[in-house]
């Protein structure tokens, strides 16, 4: 089995690398276990927002000079990061998802009603700043426990004109009340007009915005929301739920759809071994002992969070496929909990400027590139930079592969 590029993992960085490589004329084979950390996100794209920083944010890039020199953004370079984000929001996928024109200073609601910043909102995602002085109806579904309507109400009552919480029946009461079942039952709703007409009678006539939990359909949500707006004659928006969140699943599905047009995608392959000779990887093997060879390899399997990198009980940290050099910040030895958490987040694979991993003898593997949460020296949680580093490193690794392939 041979392809130009093998991508290991199903993180956002894997998808980005694959799409970018197609543009540059390569086809890819994605080998993954089908689980990416995107599914735990809210479907937002966060580039950088140093929490607690005093710098007034005019764009995510105004925080760049606060980052340490080994941060992946500094490895990739500010100009490249900007280019990759511009490129990402120009993708067809986002036209289909109807992402708004991306904007650096958008705020949305978090699942517990706090204001969080992101870059771009997906179609009908709640915009925090639009809620001021409005009469708001929040819809919650009976027995659905992952939407925190009360916490959201408690938070926005401080600046909204009025709030009501309406308990509604889910479309198909024979189904479970989890996010996925609800989204699917909205997709399958035979007569959405009827459903929203029933709801209309119960809403405050004066309310101008209706907030639904972000479960209003998976493939057909745009149609469902549009129907709701037509019938209710009010602005309808979605607010996030506890993960796994449906907007993230929609984004994931759309990226996958894009990818399978030009590439092959395996969802049950766990790569465990690699053959390396003369600083080059020849092939990798999966858990079924199948061999996959390619000219180049991208490793996008999510770092410690998703098990791409393993932490052992004695404090060792290893990436088992290529066994590269690891920046181990010894989180188990830190005295203070917060330092320990930061050390765990910032441990990862050490690479050169091209994202090639170093081995313990300080040589590199020339045709292997690491991306996203596998990389050391960044903290997606405190930097609010999870998707940004994934996009930038996925895009950048694709460019580096094109350069490498041109040189051999």
């Amino acid at each position: 089995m041979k392809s130009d590029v093998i991508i290991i993992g199903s993180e956002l960085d894997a998808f980005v690398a694959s799409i970018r490589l197609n543009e540059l004329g390569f086809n890819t084979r994605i080998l993954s276990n089908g689980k990416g950390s995107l599914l735990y996100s809210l479907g937002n794209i966060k580039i950088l927002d140093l929490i607690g920083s005093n710098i007034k944010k005019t764009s995510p890039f105004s925080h760049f000079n606060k980052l340490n020199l080994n941060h992946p953004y500094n490895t990739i370079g500010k100009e490249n990061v900007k280019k990759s984000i511009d490129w990402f929001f120009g993708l067809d996928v986002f036209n289909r998802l109807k992402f708004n024109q991306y904007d650096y200073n958008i705020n949305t609601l978090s699942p517990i009603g706090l204001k969080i910043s992101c870059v771009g909102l997906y179609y009908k995602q709640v915009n925090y700043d639009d809620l001021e002085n409005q009469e708001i109806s929040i819809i919650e579904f009976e027995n659905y426990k992952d939407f925190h309507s009360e916490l959201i109400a408690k938070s926005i009552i401080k600046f909204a004109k009025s709030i009501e919480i309406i308990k509604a029946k889910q479309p198909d009461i024979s189904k479970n009340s989890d996010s996925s079942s609800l989204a699917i039952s909205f997709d399958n709703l035979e007569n959405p007009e009827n459903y929203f007409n029933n709801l209309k009678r119960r809403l405050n006539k004066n309310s101008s915005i209706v907030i639904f939990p972000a479960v209003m359909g998976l493939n057909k949500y745009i149609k469902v929301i549009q129907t709701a707006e037509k019938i209710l004659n009010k602005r309808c928006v979605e607010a996030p739920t506890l993960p796994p969140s449906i907007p993230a699943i929609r984004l994931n599905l759309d990226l996958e759809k894009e990818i399978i047009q030009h590439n092959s995608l395996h969802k049950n392959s766990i790569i465990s071994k690699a053959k390396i000779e003369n600083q080059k990887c020849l092939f990798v093997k999966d858990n079924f002992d199948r061999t996959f060879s390619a000219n180049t390899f991208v490793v996008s399997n999510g770092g410690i969070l998703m098990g791409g990198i393993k932490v052992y009980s004695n404090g060792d940290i290893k990436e088992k496929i290529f066994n590269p050099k690891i920046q181990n910040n010894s989180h188990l030895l830190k005295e203070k909990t917060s330092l320990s958490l930061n050390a765990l987040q910032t441990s990862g694979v050490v690479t050169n400027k091209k994202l090639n991993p170093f081995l313990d003898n300080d040589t590199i593997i020339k045709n292997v590139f690491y991306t996203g949460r596998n990389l050391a020296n960044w903290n997606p949680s405190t930097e609010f930079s999870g998707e940004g580093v994934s996009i930038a490193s996925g895009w950048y690794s694709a460019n580096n592969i094109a350069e490498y392939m041109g040189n051999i």
Partner: protein
Amino acid sequence: MNKNHMPRIIVIGGGATGCGVARDLSLRGYRVILIESGDLGSGTSSRFHGMLQSGARYVVSDTAYAAECYRERKIISKIIPEAVEEIGGVFVSLKNEEGNFPDKFFSCCVKAKIPCEEIDSEDFLRNEKELTKDIERVFKVPDAIINPWKLVNALAKDIKNLGGEIFTNHQVISINHKNNLVNSVEVINKNGIKKNIHCEAVINASGAWSGKIANLFDQEVSLELTKGSIMVFSHRIVNLAINRCRMPTSNDIMCPSGTVSLWGTTSQVVDDPNTTKVNPDEIQKLLDGAEELFPNIREFRSFRAWAGVRPIVKPKNHNKDLPLPRSHSVIDHHKEGFNNILTVCGGSLTTHRSMAEDVVNQIGNKLGINNQCETSEIVISDPRKSNWNSTSYFKKIEKEKNYNDLICECELITKKDIEEVVENEDEIDFHNIRRRVRVGFGPCQGTFCNSRLANFLASKKYDFDTEESILDFWAERLKGSINTAYGDQAKQVLLSDYIFQENFGLNLSSINKKIMKLNNEK
């Protein structure tokens, strides 16, 4: 009996001992006020391996104390069955161990009248798959496990029913006396409001904090404080409480409890009873010790480690070469000039009731009241509640099929369970709720139930600060789970961080302060 004529006694300390003392006093007709600086049972009482000792552990080193443990263990099981799970325990010796400790152990059990039976090790290992095959001899003993929260809460409920008063979150700041008699105790609550409470006598039952309380009236209690750390492993990896058959030391107990197993402990002398930080080297020592019994233990998921501080009384003129006795002492401060204050200390959770009986007898002697102790006879438990059984929860949820009402999916805590708790609380505190119903105690350590709990309480119109409360809950869970952030737990810790910071937008910089406060760091 007219209570109004009975002396009013202040009990300091709301752990198992203090609650036991207050219940005993209440049953004998005294007017009682219990003062606890934090939440009931939040000190040493909840920071141990959860075992209700058969006494066998101490049978060689301190046979009299072992016999007391067995006697008390039977009484607790009878009077508060809802807090006790009768699982049984074993003492195991390994093939390479020298000496004749197992024989000595068996003969001492006979002497102390602790039922002990040697069983076939091969038969035994067929049911305990994770244990090493190097086990040579196995002795079955009647160990049980106890849920310390259920114990103190049952005691507290009974104290209130009997007319006693309980002040939690009240710290003692001074003990006032006149003519060799303590006449009042001044306390301060967490909002800084002070109160002076009059009394006719005081019982200091504050365990590891006894010395600090004694200092308030210029006295010293000679204690050795030792910190013991415990690791919690996911699942019940054993069916029975497993003890090493050797002189009691570190690393010798694996105890299944609820949906988890607890391994411990370490022993390190400390100065401050608030030292509850687990050091990294302790984790490695615990794992090394556990590996001797469970060869694959490093592959198991451990989702937390915590520490508690044991107060062991140092008798005067104690021979340094001998281990300190585990039995309790009642210290009469009469010689130092105080005629109506006693300190009860040492012992263990298993013997808390007899400690209470002892100290209340002595306070009675001082006050000239000789009402008999009834705590070993009067059953506390609500007759509708059966024995504590970790699996009864699963059965209940499966029978009622109320999955949608689950707030905590790890520990199967429903909205109704939460409601029952908050109805009896004076103010909403996520920590109290967590301790009462074990919400957030499971493998996810509150990642998913934290905000669900907040949302449910908000729907019931309870007032609290969302951000503060969720952060508080997370800080408390994180402080224990970061200690064992390896294997799957490393992923779990990062997932929690992902959800609380990246998704919820909570700010880590204030969590620092919260964790420092929880760890009593400066």
